[in-house]
């Protein structure tokens, strides 16, 4: 048996990092717009006017790359089976030190829900962002509502991303390799995604 198994292709990895880069560009350029408390972040872009311009460009990149990423993986992330139900019931074993094992496919339900949330947030942030982009072209109530929803979805997205980064790095050692080199250790795959490992390797773990 090989020690490594491919989890993400080079194309999938590049796409993920395009989404990541545009996300953090949006975060940094948008912080000053979210609140005057974060006015200092404007200086990263040479002033608020430039930050708005960067925010708009990064917004277009994020909108399309994020939605494309979801559509590419939509089959894997939108179906839930019995094993997923068991994972959800036990919160994936994350709330206990006890060893927990689940017969999980390529993605666990947490990852699936994260993917669906980010896709929905991308759509909502994109549409509300469009109204905020040209507020004088739309009725005032639509723009007012958009400002609120854009802020709300921003907060929600950042909080989910904090969890995502934690679980993909120090929370589950070995996971980040899937997004860096594409290959994960077989041991990791057997432990976290046994059903997927069996299908992908043709091996019975």
């Amino acid at each position: 048996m090989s020690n490594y198994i491919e989890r993400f292709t080079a194309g999938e990895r590049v796409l993920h990092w395009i989404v990541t880069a545009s996300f953090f560009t949006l975060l940094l350029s948008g912080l000053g717009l979210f609140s005057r408390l974060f006015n200092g972040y404007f200086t990263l872009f040479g002033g608020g006017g430039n930050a708005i311009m960067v925010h708009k460009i990064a917004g277009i990149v994020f909108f399309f790359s994020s939605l494309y990423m979801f559509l590419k993986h939509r089959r894997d992330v939108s179906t839930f089976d019995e094993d997923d139900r068991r994972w959800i019931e036990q919160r994936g074993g994350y709330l206990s030190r006890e060893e927990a094992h689940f017969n999980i496919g390529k993605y666990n339900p947490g990852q699936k829900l994260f993917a669906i949330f980010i896709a929905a947030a991308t759509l909502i942030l994109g549409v509300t962002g469009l109204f905020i982009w040209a507020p004088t072209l739309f009725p005032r109530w639509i723009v007012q509502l958009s400002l609120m929803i854009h802020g709300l979805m921003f907060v929600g997205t950042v909080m989910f991303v904090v969890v995502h980064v934690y679980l993909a790095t120090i929370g589950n050692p070995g996971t980040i390799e899937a997004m860096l080199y594409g290959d994960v250790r077989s041991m990791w795959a057997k432990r976290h995604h046994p059903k997927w490992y069996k299908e992908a390797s043709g091996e019975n773990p």
Partner: protein
Amino acid sequence: MADAIKAENRKGFLVDTSRCIGCRSCQVACKQWNKMAADKTVEQGSYENPRDLTPALYNRIRFLEVGEEPGGVNWLFLNERCMHCGEAGCMKVCPSPGALYRTKEGVVAYNKEKCISCKYCVSACPFNVPRYDSDDKVSKCHLCLDRLSGGMPPACAKACPTGTLKFGKRSDLIADAQATGKQLYGVNDLGGLGVVYALEGPPERYGLPATPHIPLSIFLWKDVIKPLGILGFWGSIGAMLLHYVTIGPKKIDEAPEKEERHE
């Protein structure tokens, strides 16, 4: 109140609509003092002209024809402009410090050089006042700040021939008007408006909101989502760290035979 104004310094208008004859001297004087070009207008069957505030029109007279008892029509005139709210929605949302600022007289003034063209003020204004000029910068009544600093009243008040637009110390104007028994609009709303009206009839008749307030979604954005969001951000980071040191990561470097137990 985020931007506290000293009541004894606060200047403002008292607009007594019963005295207004709709001559629009205020509009013209404002244009002249602030050196703004005329707006091209269209004849639409009304003396009201222009029909809305523009980036080059800081105040105007709203003409309202209100049907009264059978056959009768009441012609109402309302001077419309930035209200210089005590709690200003525009200042609440402006992300660029110094673009919109409060003077010691309580004026909501602006500095176009600091405006970053986000147009949040357009959405946050309770009275739909701010406009954006051809350079995409905020534009509205600034109470003739330059005249004010020289001890002169704003051009509109100077030009008003009927005493409709009274300018002065806000508390004195309100006290005088209340002494004559007039019903006033804007004394306490939004931290007190810088433009207080003595109206003939309910405010809705003039197209003014009965209880002016910062739009609900703007309030929720700035006063609820913003603080809770910052809390949520640090909370989620704290929760992850707590998880790491209490429950800990899911390690994979276990004895292989344990791994064999799957399925």
